[in-house]
């Protein structure tokens, strides 16, 4: 029955590590802006208070970003798995929606959005 004891120990350790991660990593702060990244590059940032619908050109396809009522979601996409669409709404700082096939990440960030990228000097 020594074997069973080790099993309980390992499963307990896994649960504990998971709870620890949840406490450390689970986003709780409300966010302020939505950052869009395509293939690792920030392509746009919008205030979460906005009400808009825009098309993100991903790698090999598009994702339609909708921001309303203080949350963001990818409403439509032509990716094969459509997992990004199923992820639903996000509003807490640190939350993200990922479209792996298109290499698109939208993430809720805390900082106020910077001016539109095309206006900013380099």
């Amino acid at each position, binding site marked *: 029955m020594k*074997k069973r004891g080790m099993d309980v120990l390992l499963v307990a350790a896994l649960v504990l590590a*998971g709870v620890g991660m949840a406490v450390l*990593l689970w986003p709780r702060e409300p966010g302020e802006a939505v950052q869009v990244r395509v293939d690792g590059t920030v392509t746009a940032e919008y205030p979460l208070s906005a009400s808009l619908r825009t098309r993100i050109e991903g790698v090999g396809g598009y994702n339609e970003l909708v921001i309303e009522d203080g949350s963001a979601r990818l409403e439509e996409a032509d990716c094969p798995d459509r*997992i990004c669409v*199923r992820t639903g709404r996000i509003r807490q700082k640190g939350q*993200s929606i990922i479209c*792996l096939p298109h290499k698109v990440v939208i993430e809720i960030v805390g900082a106020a959005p910077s001016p539109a990228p095309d206006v900013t000097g380099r």
Partner: protein
Amino acid sequence: MKQPAKNRFSAKKAARFGLLVALALIFSYAESQIPPFFAVPGMKIGLTNVVVLTALYKMGSGPAMGVNLLRIFLVGLLFGNPFSVVYSLSGGMLSTVVMILLRKSGRFRLITVSVAGGVFHNVGQIAAAAVIMQTAQLGWYMVVLWFTGMLTGALIGVLGYEMVRRLPDALFE
């Protein structure tokens, strides 16, 4: 005619190995037809892990790793893309290594080995996603996938246990 017995032995073993790879392919395909019910990339039941567990407990560490590697490359070739191969390779290799080590330690039951395998499968996939997407902001995915990995690992462990128990050892000798 040197060692005919040994040759026959390995041919038979190769046939069993091929059978397991074929079974893993079928499971992979079946699973790809199920729409994902958790809206997180990489969230799958991991049916093929039943086959990896069978290979691990009936044939050993090498065949378990081999079945999984071949399965990943064949699935990528048949229904996937290079990108999905990297992704499943990272999860598949990490979970298989963890399961091999835990089994070798001789201290854990099959179902526990499978639970740890489920968790580290998802950890490997998240790690690959973090590198590919160039983002470290995958914390909440990690939390969700950590626990779903435990649940699916337990489910697969029960199936795998039945498979290992019911299949006669003679089939793999």
